[in-house]
């Protein structure tokens, strides 16, 4: 047989391993270059510098400080606001997504998709304005609610506190939930609901055995993404609080500004790295779950 191969030439066979011959990658090179230089490089540098002391020697001291006060509270607060804003927005967002996607006419669904896109990206100063105007001390809604008998400022509430920020975060978390969760709803085939009914399942049984089990992973994944969104938010927190609420993004911002003089030059980098790790712990499972759910979501 070897003779035959030598005479006639080996038949072309698919390779069993990844080949990275330059030619085969050519069209992807622009993307890879940009990704490499403008993304992978800064992140790598961030990680590298986070381990450097002021004298450019290797140290873990940046990270040690990162886990002490006030940064420890910063992390706890950021994680808390991420979890809470995700938890509060997740279920209503899922319900809203369900009704919109399953009953809405096409034009409505597309309009809401666009609206959600804009709202999910709303933040910072514009958002702070809107809420101050609405439920600030002199806000319109504040006055209306007061007239109706509910003084929202009777307790410790204020927009610049944790609770206040949480309420404002919901404004972009809810639309984000709708955006992220809607594809899962869309993928619920009408045939499954009909087959279930035909086989004797009422609405409750359908949801219990088919609907909810199918949607649950995507729901969890969406929750994770919302957590990352709330955890990492900077602009809105910066606009509403005046430095009284320790939050990691704000603390990093402060260090970047040079407002806070730190003995450790690279403390901000360490904080950034920890932020990345925490965010990754949510976003990577999100991506994995979405990939697996895509199996039955193929349309």
């Amino acid at each position: 047989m070897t003779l035959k191969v030598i005479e006639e030439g080996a038949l072309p066979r698919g390779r069993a391993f990844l080949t990275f011959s330059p030619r085969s990658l050519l069209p992807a090179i622009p993307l890879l270059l940009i990704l490499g230089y403008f993304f992978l490089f800064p992140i790598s540098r961030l990680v590298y510098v986070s381990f450097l002391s002021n004298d450019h020697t290797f140290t873990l001291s940046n990270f040690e400080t990162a886990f002490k006060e006030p940064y420890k509270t910063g992390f706890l607060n950021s994680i808390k606001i991420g979890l809470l804003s995700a938890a509060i927005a997740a279920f209503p967002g899922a319900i809203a997504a369900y009704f919109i996607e399953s009953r809405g006419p096409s034009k409505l669904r597309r309009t809401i998709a666009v609206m959600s896109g804009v709202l999910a990206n709303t933040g910072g100063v514009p958002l702070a304005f809107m809420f101050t105007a609405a439920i600030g001390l002199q806000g319109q809604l504040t006055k209306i609610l007061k007239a109706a008998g509910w003084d929202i400022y009777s307790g410790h509430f204020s927009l610049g506190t944790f609770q206040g920020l949480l309420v404002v975060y919901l404004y972009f978390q809810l639309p984000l939930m709708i955006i992220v969760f809607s594809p899962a709803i869309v993928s619920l085939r009408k045939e499954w609901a009909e087959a279930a009914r035909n086989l004797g399942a009422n609405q409750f049984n359908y949801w219990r055995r088919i609907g909810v089990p199918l949607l649950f992973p995507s729901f969890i994944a969406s929750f994770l993404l919302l957590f990352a969104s709330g955890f990492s938010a900077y602009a809105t927190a910066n606009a509403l609080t005046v430095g009284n609420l320790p939050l990691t993004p704000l603390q990093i911002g402060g260090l970047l500004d040079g407002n806070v003089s730190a003995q450790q030059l690279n403390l901000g980098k360490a904080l950034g790295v920890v932020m990345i790790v925490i965010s990754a712990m949510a976003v990577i499972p999100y991506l994995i779950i979405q990939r697996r759910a895509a199996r039955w979501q193929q349309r």
Partner: protein
Amino acid sequence: MSSKSLTLRNISKKFGSVLALDNFNLEVGVGELVALLGPSGCGKTTALRVVAGLENQDSGKVLVGETDLSQTPAHKRNMGMVFQAYSLFPNLTVEENVTFGLQMRKVSKHLRKKKAEELLELVGLPTHSQRFTFQLSGGQQQRVALARALAFEPEILLLDEPLSALDAQVRVNLREEIRRLQLSLGTTTLFVTHDQEEAMAISDRVGVMSHGKLEQIDTPDTLYNKPATSFVASFVGTMNYIPAELKDGHVEIFGKKIPALKNANAAGAVFALIRPESISVNSDSRDHNAKVLTRLFMGPSSNIVCQTNDGTIIQSLMSSIETGDLHPGSTVKLEVLNKEVLVSNA
């Protein structure tokens, strides 16, 4: 549970301004397999879905046996249904899919497992019980769907174009299995399809539908040989329309006088409706009356397309052996083999 008869009485259904079913009536006898055949939009799927309770009719009744099910919700109708595709629950194994109906009826786990084994054996997938939908081929999925529909021994079996999404060979095999199963279980079955070969092959009776109405319902033989309307004639199989003169109850075709089947509407200039296999093509005899245009070789048989002297295009279906010597341009003699012909108005 022994099967019952299925009756649709005066069913009408509108979708917006479109009349999908127009005073539709149908009776399926106990243990019968009736196919509803027709082009897209003829209302056949709507009729099936009304029976299943997935659509509400505007007027009319659905009866199983003597019981009026018109007001009964879909999940209480006790009918097994097989959808065209994608109907298996993706989060459940094959076994869980098959026993879903039994689970809804609160059958014990032990009995459910037994029934699943039995049915999977019946549909030829005994080793697949723990697989998931995405691990199955299209044909396998439909077998599971069939098993699932039959698991709780329904009185009525409904099939909504179950083979349309499958490859040709799989389709042929699976339709035979469906018929075999249906006969052995004796389940009253309503089968919707747009493929007339499929319908004719496995049904006791076939109902041809058009625009929400039943054009004709008969055994496949009758439907084929005695189509009641020209729609049925051209939808079921191929038909030649040969212009002729109806005189004294006879038409003259290719020099032969053939009695015409009684048709109250037809008179004077008519079309004689003749199936391709009833026209013989002969190159031996001497008086030729047509010229061969093409010969389409289809394996055991060939389609010979000819043109007569007055320009009519005629199709003939003959065995390939008999027509091996024919080629475009050959002159031939066409002859009608029928003892009597159908006629319709020009």
